[in-house]
């Protein structure tokens, strides 16, 4: 083949759970160039927070991501509480920690399943999702929702942990630990897993730092970095746990880091259950937050989550800025894809546990007159032009006369 083949993966593709466009240039089956286009899933979350009060914004922020919903809401709340000068009760901090770790459990199990599916190992996918269901059942029992828990509120948490729940959580932990140890064994003993994952998506320690990778991707490149340890929040300063690192720098390392982190999370949950103090679960919060700016950090399952909040003394935030962990990991993607096989593209993309809608930001289109307002027709024209340059003609698609929202 003299000409290089250009393959579009996405915006709609079976291996992507959300829309993003990867333009892969191939030489045979080898990737020689990768171009990443994101922004198909922009929802204007930051803007919509600016027209809602702090309580309403909390639920919007919780829906930045379906999987790390607790991470985003806790990160946002710790900022707001700092601005208001409110210390949350100790018991509330314990409950938030337990939820954070339960979230890490189900996020990592979900990722393990997705990774299995991307390399065609559907049995692993089904098993891990079956086990993840145990965690989700516990979460539904504790807070009444399966994914967007709605456990956090300004000044504390909304539901208390009952004694009978604690037994259920312990039972679940024991089961997950047993199953997880099996997955650790499997990852280390199955030859096809090793064949598909080892040496794939290499990201050296220097590159990981250069591209600003976070979370398990960074730790799998051998960098001991975890916000829970570097900049502890809630009750993490007193919890003994290990920061898992692995120095193989490939997708296999990311698998190992995640499965071992599941065990650490179980350790943390057990510590919290053993040392849970009595007391209130909610502190009194003012509805109006005093003016000020704050940056808060949180170790989400996918990496470090950063929120910036600017308050202006009313009950509505002036600015909320979310830096989701996936956004930090995107930058190393093109580097990781280069030089590997096309067959490895899905697993490399999946290995950062990408969350597209967390990442997508607004693009402002400027027309010739310099005005910032762009009407519908112009956006459509731009879209058609954009895809024509990629070799796809969408101008023949007819629009309905009136769009009903």
């Amino acid at each position, binding site marked *: 083949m003299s000409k290089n083949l250009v393959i579009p993966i996405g915006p709609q593709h079976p291996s992507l759970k959300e829309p993003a466009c990867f333009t892969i240039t191939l030489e045979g089956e080898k990737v020689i160039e990768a171009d990443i286009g994101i922004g198909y899933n922009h929802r204007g979350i930051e803007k919509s927070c600016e027209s*809602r*009060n702090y*309580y*309403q*914004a*909390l*639920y*919007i922020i*919780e*829906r930045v991501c379906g999987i790390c919903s607790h991470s985003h809401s806790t990160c946002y709340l710790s900022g707001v509480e700092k601005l208001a000068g409110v210390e949350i009760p100790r018991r509330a901090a314990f409950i938030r920690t337990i939820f954070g770790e339960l979230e890490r459990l189900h996020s990592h199990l979900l990722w393990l399943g997705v990774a299995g599916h991307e390399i065609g190992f559907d*049995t*692993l996918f089904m*098993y891990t999702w*079956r086990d993840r*269901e145990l965690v989700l059942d516990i979460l*539904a*029992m504790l807070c*009444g*929702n399966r994914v*967007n828990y*709605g456990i956090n*509120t300004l000044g504390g948490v*909304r539901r208390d942990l009952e004694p009978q729940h604690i037994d259920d959580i312990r039972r679940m932990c024991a089961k997950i630990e047993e199953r997880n140890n*099996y997955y650790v064994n*499997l990852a*280390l*003993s*199955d*030859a*096809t897993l*090793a064949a598909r994952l080892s040496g794939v998506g290499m990201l050296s320690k220097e590159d990981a730092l250069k591209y600003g990778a976070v979370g398990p991707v960074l730790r799998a490149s051998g960098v001991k970095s975890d916000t829970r340890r570097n900049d502890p929040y809630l009750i993490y300063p007193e919890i003994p746990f290990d920061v898992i690192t692995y120095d193989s720098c490939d997708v296999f390392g990311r698998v190992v880091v995640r499965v071992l982190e599941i065990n650490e999370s179980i350790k943390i949950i057990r510590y919290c259950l053993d040392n849970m103090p009595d007391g209130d679960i909610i502190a009194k919060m003012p509805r109006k937050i005093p003016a000020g700016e704050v940056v808060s950090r949180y170790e989400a399952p996918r990496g470090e989550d950063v929120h910036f909040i600017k308050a202006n003394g009313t009950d509505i935030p002036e600015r909320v800025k979310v830096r989701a962990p996936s956004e930090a990991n995107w930058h190393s993607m093109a580097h990781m894809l280069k030089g590997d096989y096309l067959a490895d593209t899905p697993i490399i993309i999946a290995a950062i546990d990408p969350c597209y809608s967390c990442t997508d930001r607004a693009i402002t289109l400027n027309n010739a007159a310099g005005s910032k307002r762009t009407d519908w027709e112009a956006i459509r024209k731009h879209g058609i032009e954009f895809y024509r340059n990629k070799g796809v003609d969408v101008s023949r698609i007819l629009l309905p006369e009136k769009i009903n929202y």
Partner: protein
Amino acid sequence: MKKKIPGAIIKTAFPTIFQKPATVGYPFEPLKIDDDYRGELTYDAEACIGCSMCMRDCPANAIEIINIGTKEDKKFKAIFHLDHCIYCGQCVDSCPKDALVMSNNIELASLDRNNLKVERE
């Protein structure tokens, strides 16, 4: 390093064939829903004082409280837009009189969007 063999999962997978499946044939078999699961809202018109705290805190504008009585003899009616509702339960927390409670009814799917706008008195 352990010796790597292909298909190491067989020891667990083969016995699984003869075990009971973990999935449930949901619409035909009942699903276990916890009692305090956050499902459809219920409304107690007697308890409601019309303070509209719920309307103020609802992030999705899914709830409306309307006075259907006179100015002196107030009587309230609630309109729930279940298609907007995100089932966060903030209205339940915000209500000072416990007039709003969440039930564990989650089977609200409907083919017509208008069916999801429900009025409660």
